[in-house]
């Protein structure tokens, strides 16, 4: 079972008067086959947390551990933009992050490309695909290394509403089938309510403000009454925490 453990995490940028606190003493524990969303306003440190978890940035103090049955877990990432190598074909983009280029790796990549319905586009270059298709390749790439945990940083925020909705569904189906632990950063409360078992709320200045369980059955339709009610409740929490005013 995968576990993400964040203990007393503190991160600040700059020195002196330019000092900005991005994360302030954050504690978080995520375990097992769950889909956890991190929501909060702009500049609340959501992405910084993800960057620290992915090793791109180092914490100022505190520590994060990502384990799978007491060993280091292998993480996969989906970014805001697809971040594909434009000079590589779709298949080669997936193979780029594999440990080897064996036939087995190739078949695995093909399987996940099939899952995102791009099985017939493996020889295309990213520039030949639409924005939605590129993001699908990004998702397939993250799944193709069969990671223990998946980190996603607002992966649908650049897509149009209809494409985003279709991809959300696909992603959720893949999460259900593969039983991964997912940490999903978004500023869209509706998206968080639709996808997550649990929503972690951050406020400006990088403080963890609330931790909400959403116990509704999947798949959730955003137009369902229960989902709408849950969304309203989370939004009300935002207001109580004075997040919107700030």
């Amino acid at each position: 079972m995968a576990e993400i453990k964040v203990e007393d995490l503190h991160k600040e940028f700059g020195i002196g008067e330019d000092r900005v606190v991005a994360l302030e003493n954050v504690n978080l524990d995520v375990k097992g086959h769950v889909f956890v969303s991190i929501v909060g306003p702009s500049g609340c440190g959501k992405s910084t947390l993800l960057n620290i978890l992915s090793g791109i940035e180092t914490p100022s103090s505190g520590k994060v551990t990502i384990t799978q049955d007491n060993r280091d877990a292998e993480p996969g990432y989906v970014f805001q933009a697809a971040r594909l190598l434009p000079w590589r074909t779709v298949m080669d983009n997936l193979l780029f992050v594999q440990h080897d280029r064996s036939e087995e790796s190739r078949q695995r990549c093909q399987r996940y490309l099939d899952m995102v319905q791009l099985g017939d586009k493996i020889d295309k270059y990213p520039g030949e695909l639409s924005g939605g298709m590129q993001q699908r390749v990004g998702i397939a790439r993250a799944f193709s290394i069969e990671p223990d945990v998946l980190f996603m940083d607002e992966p649908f925020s650049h897509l149009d509403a209809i494409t985003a909705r279709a991809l959300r569904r696909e992603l959720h189906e893949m999460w259900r089938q593969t039983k991964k632990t997912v940490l999903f950063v978004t500023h869209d409360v509706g998206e968080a309510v639709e996808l997550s078992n649990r929503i972690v709320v951050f406020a400006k200045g990088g403080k963890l403000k609330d931790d909400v369980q959403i116990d509704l059955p999947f798949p959730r339709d955003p137009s369902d009454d229960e989902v709408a009610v849950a969304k309203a409740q989370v939004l009300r929490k935002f207001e109580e925490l004075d997040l919107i005013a700030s």
Partner: protein
Amino acid sequence: MATPVGSAPMQGSRLRRAFTSPVTARILFPFAVIAVWYLIYYTIDSRIFPTPVEVLEFMWEEITLTSGVRYSSVATNLYGQFGISILRLTAGFLIATTIGTLLGLAMGLWKSVDAFFHDWVMAILAMPALVWALALSIIFGFGHTAPVLTVILAGVPFVIVNVREGVRNTPKELIDMAKSFEVPQEKITRHVLLPSLMPFFFAGMRYAYSIGWKGLVIAEVFGSQVGMGWTIKFWYDAHRAKGVIGYALFFIIFAVTLEKVVFDPLARRTFKWRPALNAYQLAEGDFGAVSQEGFLLEEDEIDQDIEVTGMEGRSHDG
């Protein structure tokens, strides 16, 4: 009468469009040149200025070795002179490309290396090739050394500057992506850094080649007894403009052919991934953002104003 918006173009304008099309314009250019040439011919002393036909005749005689001119003991005809110049140019060009690439990479990757060389690269860049040609001819005499060195010194700063810019323009998002997937550094260099460098490398190579040629001709005029530059000087001393123009044309033909036969296909192969606007993007009205070098800019590169000041690196907290 109001013109309908968005209707198909009218048939009647087809002839006019054929006349004003870029292709026609391109074909018309040589004719315009010849017209101007004859205009000059008839307005100035025609004993000095040759007609295009005279130049072509001269070139044909040189090609078929029927002119009877023997230039020097080392290279007795067009092919000999040309061969020597091409060898010098190729040697200088290859050395300039190699040194330029290595130095450019180092300067792009390490700030201290950049600081060490920066001013001197700029100084060499500012130095006219003529000065190299003169100085090196005095130092090294009439051998291969001065012309080859001139080619190197004229071309190398262009390779350095371009490669360095290429390294600096490596998309950080892609490097971060590769690192978070724990791709080994050697693989990142090969598959992310080098390919993103290619457009800059090609630009540097093309500059080094054309600037190198100009340097070579000057060096051969002053510091050589063989080669294209020397031959052009030979015809200058003989007061025969057709020789000077004819030999310059030989090289232009060679340069254009090389461009079409070597550089263009090489570039086409290297950049076959470059996106032409594709049907999906057109259909979605998503024209992306393709930078000059043909990279797809990531969307988060475009709204850089969201960067939080005082934070190092990029923050995408939006």
